[in-house]
């Protein structure tokens, strides 16, 4: 679809000539995912659908206890300090943002009265100013009114370096002003194509000014409300035992009619993913279990218990193998994998191409991850709008052999290929995790057939995923030839995520290995393309730039995508819930109910 055609369609929606839903369907058909299709409409002056999920109960309460099983329990309940999803989810039990992302990628208002759009004046034409209208009559759990002052306070709280809020990245560069009691204005320093960040989703949960005002900055850790949240959500806080249990009871003054359905909620922590799935699917002790990164064969078997079903929701996370462009075995100025070195064999495009033919993604999908991981050729595969059509993948050992032969890598006496004394023998590392070790086994076997020797290394997750400067086993150090893990954009927009191939982001000793570019691949074309998308307000052109970025990474075989990692949850039979791959599992739990 060309830019012209698209513009024609958008005009059709504006004039009422084309129905909004059929526009979205056409967009999906051409590979434009809902969230961006919607933002596209928003920027072009069409309000987003204020889609209401069908909700059947006719009164609040009466549903018993909603029992959630998070196998890693929340350890703190202040959203501005939430380091992982478990803490974000624990906070989300009581706190709400202005809007959240639903499963189709629509932005759905929660504490906002309506979503900003060009039509309602919420979005300025230059892409710099966003005006949010707040829902009126919303009360905090202690009865105080929720107003624009709370939002301005959250901005000040989060951007204050002394608070050291995890959310500060979303607030430090913007300006938030109160227009009136129920209106705020956000000003970005430069045109911002993806504006739905501050006050939206996980980083957007709003804490009450009247309880936190005395505890901003240095005193933030002393706030009693850090442990006893007072929010606006459907359930009122009752008890918190870090890592074990969070409970709440129904909020009789909730701002949506007939909600919530349950009388109480509990989030139990601890244990492991398999037994969490068991408690929902097989014994029915719990209603909902989160983040089940478990072999699909096991899940299918548990589903046969008949008490519940597994729900898969695709987000943007991708399990991928990274190639090291620097030499992990040579030490320069006290660091290995130094940007000053060149990998003796992985810098040869033929070797990387051969490797990409040796990753049997379909088998990894079919036999290891099942529904929990689909094979893909792309690094950016979701939202669909950004998914490139110019890439393909194939598992073909013969092709790999042909490529290596042609490039002059000849099998040595031990079967491992050599060229000019350089051996194709690689150290392939990842974190300790059963599916990952199985993937390693599959790749190793295929590589052996093609004459590439693989030594497998697995590092315990708490070390691998740490930022410890002194430890050589972390993934940012990348003291190996190949490594594998999952990563993905945190919002339905890949711009920040794609920073990881910029030459300015090189991960090295001088920046304490905090740079995002871990493969140490450098490309001028990539850098210029990335900077071009930053200023591009036209969503179509911007999407094209993103696709080009993806293609550069894939066609140069900088990384080899393996499978997508959707979120996997177990849901008991009677529970009706809408999940989302772009937001917290419980982003919409005010609307959850049980079919009797």
């Amino acid at each position, binding site marked *: 679809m060309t830019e012209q055609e698209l513009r024609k369609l958008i005009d059709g929606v504006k004039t009422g000539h084309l129905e909004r839903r059929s526009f979205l369907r056409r967009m999906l058909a051409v590979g434009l995912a809902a969230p961006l299709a919607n933002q596209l409409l928003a920027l072009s002056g069409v309000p987003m659908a204020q889609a209401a999920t069908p909700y059947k109960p006719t009164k609040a309460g009466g549903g018993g206890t909603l029992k959630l099983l998070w196998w890693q329990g929340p350890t703190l309940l202040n959203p501005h300090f939430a380091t992982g999803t478990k803490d974000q989810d624990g906070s989300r039990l009581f706190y709400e943002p202005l809007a959240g992302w639903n499963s189709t990628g629509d932005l759905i208002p929660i504490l906002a009265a309506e979503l900003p759009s060009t039509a309602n004046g919420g979005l300025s034409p230059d892409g710099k100013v966003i005006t949010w209208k707040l829902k009126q009559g919303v009360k905090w759990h202690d009865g105080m009114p929720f107003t624009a002052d709370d939002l301005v306070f959250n901005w000040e709280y989060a951007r204050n*370096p002394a608070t050291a809020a995890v959310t500060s990245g979303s607030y430090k560069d913007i300006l938030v002003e109160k227009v009136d009691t129920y209106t705020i204005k956000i000003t970005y320093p430069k045109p911002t194509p993806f504006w739905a960040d501050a006050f939206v989703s996980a980083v957007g949960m709003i804490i009450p000014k009247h309880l936190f005002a005395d505890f901003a900055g240095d005193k933030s850790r002393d706030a009693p409300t850090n442990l006893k949240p007072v929010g606006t959500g459907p359930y009122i806080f009752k008890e918190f035992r870090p890592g074990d249990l969070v409970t709440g009871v129904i909020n009789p003054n909730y701002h949506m009619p007939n909600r919530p359905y349950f009388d109480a909620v509990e989030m139990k922590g601890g244990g492991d993913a398999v037994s969490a799935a068991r408690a929902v699917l097989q014994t029915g002790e719990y209603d909902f279990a989160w983040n089940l990164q478990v072999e699909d064969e096991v899940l299918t078997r548990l589903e046969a218990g008949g008490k519940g079903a597994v729900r898969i929701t695709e987000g943007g996370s991708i399990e991928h193998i990274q190639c090291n462009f620097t030499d992990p075995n040579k030490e320069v100025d006290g660091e290995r994998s130094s940007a000053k070195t060149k990998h003796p064999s992985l810098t040869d495009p033929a070797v990387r191409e051969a490797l990409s033919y040796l990753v049997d993604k379909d088998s990894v999908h079919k036999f290891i991850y099942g529904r929990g991981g689909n094979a893909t050729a792309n690094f950016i595969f979701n939202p669909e709008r950004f998914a490139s059509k110019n890439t393909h993948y194939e598992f073909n050992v013969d092709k790999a052999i042909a490529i290596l032969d042609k490039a002059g890598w000849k099998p040595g006496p031990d079967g491992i290929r050599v060229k000019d004394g350089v051996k194709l023998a690689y150290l392939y590392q990842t974190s300790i995790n059963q599916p990952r070790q199985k993937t390693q086994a599959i790749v190793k076997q295929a590589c052996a057939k093609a004459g590439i020797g693989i030594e497998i290394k697995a590092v315990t997750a*708490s070390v691998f995923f740490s930022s410890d400067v002194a430890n050589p086993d972390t993934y940012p150090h990348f003291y190996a030839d190949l490594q594998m893990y999952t990563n993905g954009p945190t919002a339905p927009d890949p711009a920040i995520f794609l920073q990881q191939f910029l030459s300015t982001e090189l991960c090295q000793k001088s920046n304490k290995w905090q740079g995002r570019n871990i493969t140490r691949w450098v490309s001028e074309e990539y850098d210029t393309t990335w900077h071009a998308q930053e200023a591009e307000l036209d969503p179509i052109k911007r999407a094209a730039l993103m696709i080009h970025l993806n293609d550069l990474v894939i066609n140069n075989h900088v990384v080899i995508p393996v499978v997508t990692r959707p979120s996997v949850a177990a849901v008991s039979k009677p529970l009706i819930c809408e999940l989302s791959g772009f937001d917290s599992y419980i982003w919409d739990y005010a609307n959850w109910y049980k079919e009797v």
Partner: protein
Amino acid sequence: MSPTYVLRRLLLSIPSLLGISVVLFTVLAMAPGDPFGDIVMNPNVPASVAAALRAKFGLDDPIYIRYLHWLAAMVQGDWGFSFQSRIDVDTLILQRLPTTLIVIGASQVVAMLVAIPVGVLAAAKPYSLFDQVANTLAFVGFSLPTFFTGLLLILIFSVQLGWLPFVYRTDLNTHGLAYLADEIKQSIMPVMVLGLFQGASLVRFVRSSVMDVVKLDYVTTARSKGIGRSRVLLRHVVRNAMIPVVTLIALQMPIVFGGAIVTEQIFRIPGIGSLLITAILANDTPVVMAVTFVFACLVVLFNLIADILYGWLDPRIAFR
């Protein structure tokens, strides 16, 4: 065992605990990992946040300064502040102590109550059918790890039979007898798993040491004086055979506080073991330090108690 000896040992334990705390602190500080790793990984969080947090919690100071801070606070009864939960460490520990004491304590009691009589009886008639069965079960008991037996019990009693819940709850909302019944129902599997694992090795030790004592001269003398078999066994043998058993129990007691990581994880028991493992994985040093230090105090204390008991069991033992 004179009171002055006990007092001297108690006083001696202060420098010895100080020494242990230095080593513990150094190991924890040197072990790889970073409490704010998640933050550094997240591309949406500026690098300054992790740096500010490190400074705030004093992680950039040299180890010995951090140790002195910790020691000064500990002496004043301040156990530290959890990086992960942003909450006082003693609150975290006290929240989990009752559950740990009930479940792990019960399993130790079960282990002792089963193992000591079984071990004595097995030794009384070595290579009898009873002995063979007891031995085989004991070997199964410590050959199979708890992650395995726990799962086996869950599959049988929760999944197949549906008799017992396998998620341990701290918020049972029943009262009185119903509460007791629920508590027993949810504790019985973890208590059995742990109790049998501990009991299995205890049976072997009891049996072995009773058999060692049975062959000593004074037992023969007692028997030849015409004292009945069971009386000799109870009055003369068991007491003397208890020295290794007391040693083992003294080794086990601190674990009642320290919890059992694997079993707690399988049954989702919010005990100190699971607190410790989460804290270790998150590099939440203040929590790890507090738990291990209390554990160390208990190790030293029970070692002392064991020494005192040796003197009571065998009056000839003298500590000089």
